[in-house]
């Protein structure tokens, strides 16, 4: 087992030890100390929009059941019968009034309260009053603009404080919807990466990799095939020289969250649906605020430890660790509530091309993560380097630090200031 000093020896200002990615003992500790001790994204409220809606998901390895009761209240519950611990609900989603355990028939209301035990005369009255019989809940649950987070530990700051400067990325996404809300009601794509969960998170705001990992998707002019709303050219105009992503900037916050700045050379899309969306936003907010909303100044955002999202790509992505070398990722197309149908239809379609398990962009990332997992088995070289633009970060005006776009400082910050303290707590 790792003592705090062992862990400290594996995280240096510009590098981390390969064991962070390949050692099952580290993974077990992370499930307890990262996923067990901080706010973790659970789902979007629209996934359980109607009374009696439910979904099942996980925090780390722990099974969760998220429900909405008939009064409209949302419940985050452990998906585990109070009797012998059987996973209560086996479906991914649905709508029903309650749940019955398949083993001995214990029944629960949609809000997690015990509804009935068969042959109850075999139990004492005291036992039947034990609150431990109801479905257990994570210590803390809170949400921000529909994004639901939970913490297994009560000892965490308020969610609002935890999110801090990254809240504006969520605002950015939601404000693009004429009704000011997004909906995650277009299903999701799920893929398996045979690599450690941190690979996907390390990639969350990585601008350095794009021209190389995604070379195969570039057209003559350096643009990726028709992405939703156009896309940046990866080449300097008229050349095959990769564009300099540094002016985009990358920003990081004290709790490990981060975002990429505006993509250069990307005009707003110009289709009919966009014009219609823009008119709706102007009617609601006026010209000036609409221009502000539609300015893509945060391309890709990441909320540590398990959520990334794109305002332009219109999706959010949930990273779900399974094992030290196996990770599930779920990609949810984002619907803009109140937007023209064609706008949302185009966004859903676009995710199939960019981020499905058979997409053209994400599969190159997955292949690279899997090769990194193999490469990191090499004990002759122990370090994973994050030294790019070391020391170039300066305070930004939103409570964090900014750095040149290809800087790896968000990762340096994550491992030194978030991962290590949580693991040593």
């Amino acid at each position, binding site marked *: 087992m790792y003592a705090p000093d062992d862990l400290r020896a594996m995280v240096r200002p510009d590098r981390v030890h390969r064991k962070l990615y390949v050692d099952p003992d580290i993974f077990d500790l992370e499930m307890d100390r990262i996923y067990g001790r901080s706010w973790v994204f659970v789902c979007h409220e629209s996934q359980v929009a109607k009374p009696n809606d439910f979904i099942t998901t996980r925090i780390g390895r722990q099974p969760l059941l998220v429900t909405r009761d008939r009064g409209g209240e949302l419940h985050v519950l452990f998906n585990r019968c109070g009797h012998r611990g059987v996973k209560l609900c086996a479906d*991914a989603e649905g709508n029903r009034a309650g749940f019955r355990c398949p083993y001995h028939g214990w029944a629960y209301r949609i809000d997690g309260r015990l509804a009935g035990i068969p042959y109850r005369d075999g139990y004492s009255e005291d036992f039947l009053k034990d609150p431990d019989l109801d479905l257990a809940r994570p210590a803390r649950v809170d949400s921000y603009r529909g994004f639901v987070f939970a913490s297994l530990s009560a000892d965490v700051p308020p969610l609002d404080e935890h999110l801090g400067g990254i809240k504006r990325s969520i605002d950015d996404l939601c404000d693009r919807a004429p009704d000011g809300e997004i909906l995650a009601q*277009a*299903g*999701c*794509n*799920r*893929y*398996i990466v*045979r690599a450690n969960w941190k690979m996907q998170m390390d990639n969350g705001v990585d601008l350095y990799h794009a021209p190389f*990992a995604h*070379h*195969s*998707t570039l*057209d003559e002019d350096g643009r990726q*095939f*028709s992405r939703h709303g156009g896309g940046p050219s990866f080449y300097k105009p008229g050349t095959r020289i990769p564009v300099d992503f540094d002016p985009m900037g990358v920003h990081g916050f004290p709790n490990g969250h981060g975002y990429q700045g505006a993509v250069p050379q990307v005009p707003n899309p110009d289709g009919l649906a966009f014009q219609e969306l823009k008119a709706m936003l102007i009617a609601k907010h006026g010209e000036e605020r609409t221009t502000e909303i539609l300015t893509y100044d945060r391309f890709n955002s990441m909320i540590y430890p398990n959520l990334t999202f794109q305002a332009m790509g219109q999706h959010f992505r949930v990273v779900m660790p399974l094992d030290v070398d196996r990770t*599930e*990722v*779920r*990609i*949810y*197309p984002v619907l803009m509530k109140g937007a023209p149908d064609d706008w*949302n*239809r*185009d966004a*859903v*379609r676009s*995710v*199939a*091309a960019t981020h*499905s*398990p*058979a997409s*053209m962009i*994400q*599969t*190159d990332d*997955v*292949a*690279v993560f*899997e*090769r990194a997992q193999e490469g990191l088995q090499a004990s002759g070289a122990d370090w994973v380097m994050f030294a790019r633009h070391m020391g170039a970060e300066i305070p930004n005006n939103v409570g964090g630090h900014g750095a040149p776009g290809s800087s790896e400082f968000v990762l340096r910050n994550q491992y030194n200031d978030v991962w290590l303290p949580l693991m040593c707590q």
Partner: protein
Amino acid sequence: MTTTATLAPQTIPDIREVEQFLYREAELLDLKQWEDWADLFTADGTYWIPTAEDQADPYTRASIMFDDRQMMANRIRRLRHPEIHAQTPASRTTHLVTNVMVEPRPDPDGCIAVRCGFLMLEYRAESQFTYGGRFRYQLVATAEGLRIRSKTVHMVNCDAAHHLMAIWF
């Protein structure tokens, strides 16, 4: 389902002709003759893999693939690129098509409706993957032979978490 213009109702061909067409399609994919494979689709032809069993369309719910001819061309261009990491090393596949059934009458769009079972065995990067399910086709007869108006792939595990995929079923 994808929107297709209604055609003059097609004459239903002999099942052997349909089978031979499907086997040829499978062979083109195994031989990586993707350009020829894409040419089996009509100009408005589509290829769709939904993520749910009863999915209505590729616009209101996530799909694993939804390709028109332009997207097929994009994919082929990428598959031919020397730096496609998802195909380094390249996959080897065998596509099997079986249980072929041809509807005796044209479907509401006037197309020849065909359904069949499929299995694809794929070997890539020291791993073997098995995919299976059902295909639903809308075919049309042209002067050049049968062509695909739409192909929908109902994977038995459409809603699963999948390993990366780069090749059409």
